């Protein structure tokens, strides 16, 4: 399995989870884990997703998620899981 982390941060509004999930589903990206909070109207979500069966590569996926983020007025970051594996595990 090849995993990635999708991070979303911004002012809370209706449709953020739906918008981001739609892009993922469209490209056959499975959500493995999701953690989401709203603190003082700031929406924050971290998703761990499986991109091994995706029909696009991580760069294209990032581009489309960032576009969706702009539409929703939130910041989106997409990182390969190796970054977290290297930095948080020995």
């Amino acid at each position, binding site marked *: 399995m090849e995993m990635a982390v999708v991070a979303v941060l911004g002012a809370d509004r209706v449709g953020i989870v739906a918008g981001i999930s739609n892009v993922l589903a469209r490209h056959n990206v499975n959500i493995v884990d999701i953690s989401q909070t709203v603190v003082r109207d700031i929406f924050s979500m971290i998703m761990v997703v499986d991109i091994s069966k995706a029909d696009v590569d991580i760069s294209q996926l990032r581009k489309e998620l960032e576009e969706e983020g702009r539409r929703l007025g939130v910041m989106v970051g997409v990182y390969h899981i*190796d970054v*977290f594996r290297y930095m948080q595990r020995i």
Partner: protein
Amino acid sequence: MKFEPGEIGEVLEMLLFRELDIRAVTLSVNTLPAARPRPGDLLPALEEVLEPYLKRLRPAVERVASRLGVRIVTVRLAVSPVSILLEPIGDGAAAVEVARHLDKLAEKYGVDMVGGFSAFVHMGASRGDKALMEALPEALNTTARVAGFLNTASTMTGINLDAVKKAAEIILAMRPHAAARFAVTANLPEDVPFMPGAYHGLGLPDAVVNIAVSGPGVIEAVVRNLPDADVRTLHDAIKRAAFKITRLGELVGREVAKELGVPFGAVDLSVAPSPKVGDSVAAILEAIGLPRVGAPGSVFALALFTDAVKKGGAVAASTIGGLSGAFIPVSEDAVMAKAAAEGALTLDTLKAMTAVCNTGIDMVGIPADASPEAVAALVADVMALAVHLDKPLGVRLVPVPGAKPGDVYDLGGLYGSVAVMDISRYSKIPLMARGGTSPPGVERLKKG
């Protein structure tokens, strides 16, 4: 492998808000197969050696950055010391042509800097070294991406004062932007990914990838979150943060090496600052507890920081290399620059801090009409520290025409604004007229 949201959040905070990035991917290439006895044959031969690597370098770095989601700020090339290529030719004009050709190739292939327009002269200058030294001012004055150094001292052989004097003349013959790409060094390691210290060492295979990390903002945040911690607790926290920063360098190095099909060399664990706010090593020292960097306590704070970074980074990297210490360039660090402009930092303070860092006196402005003897004597002091503390150090001075101490000159980009410092109240330093090469210190005897 499962991660807690807090673990993911910590990394995201570093990447998004603390300026954590990879300062440089430096591809180091053996260019000695290009050596030719005739200048006309040297340039095409150099291109032939480099092109297969250059074609793939930037695309490979961009693929890795995009896959991981990590910023890689600069892409660099290190070549074998150009002085060696000049041995058969022995001509300064040919050396200038080599620099211009490297500059052109770098621009063509999207390489930000090329290091290695350099010579090792710590015990004397050979035919190629002399050609390179003759060419250095013009070569760097007429290029934009070429960097070089003169290694004038070594623990094993001592300090070449004649070369130090020559280096001072070279510095004073350079325009500010050229001088920012030139250092006088001691004990320079073979696998430095930072400029202007990068070159392809003689003990390396044909090509290796070396990595320079950044991320002082990450460590500053850690220190600021511990306002009441004692120094041992602080040291431990810095060590843990440095581990994580260096791990990112290790990951990027492995991935780029794989993409390029060349061996991964080393990670230089020094956390490089930049003139951006929140990307400053001096800000870490101030967060440790200084009213302003340069105040008493600066050497202690820098030593604590350097030691913690080394210990954390050493565990994180499969091989550490380059300078692997702490960088305190004055202009390339916003808080260092501010302290210098305020007069809190002097050359004497910097000399003292040099004892516990790995840069030396770096990116300091001097009046362009400074006395060559005073410049040489300042360099000689740093060379002596390097040789007797047995570590790499350098001097990078930027002569600013018409400037006086207290002025500021903006170099732009990663170089930042240099503060012009008072180099010496004495213009005549009779010691410099003696010349010669000082013998190696007792440190050399300890090595056998």
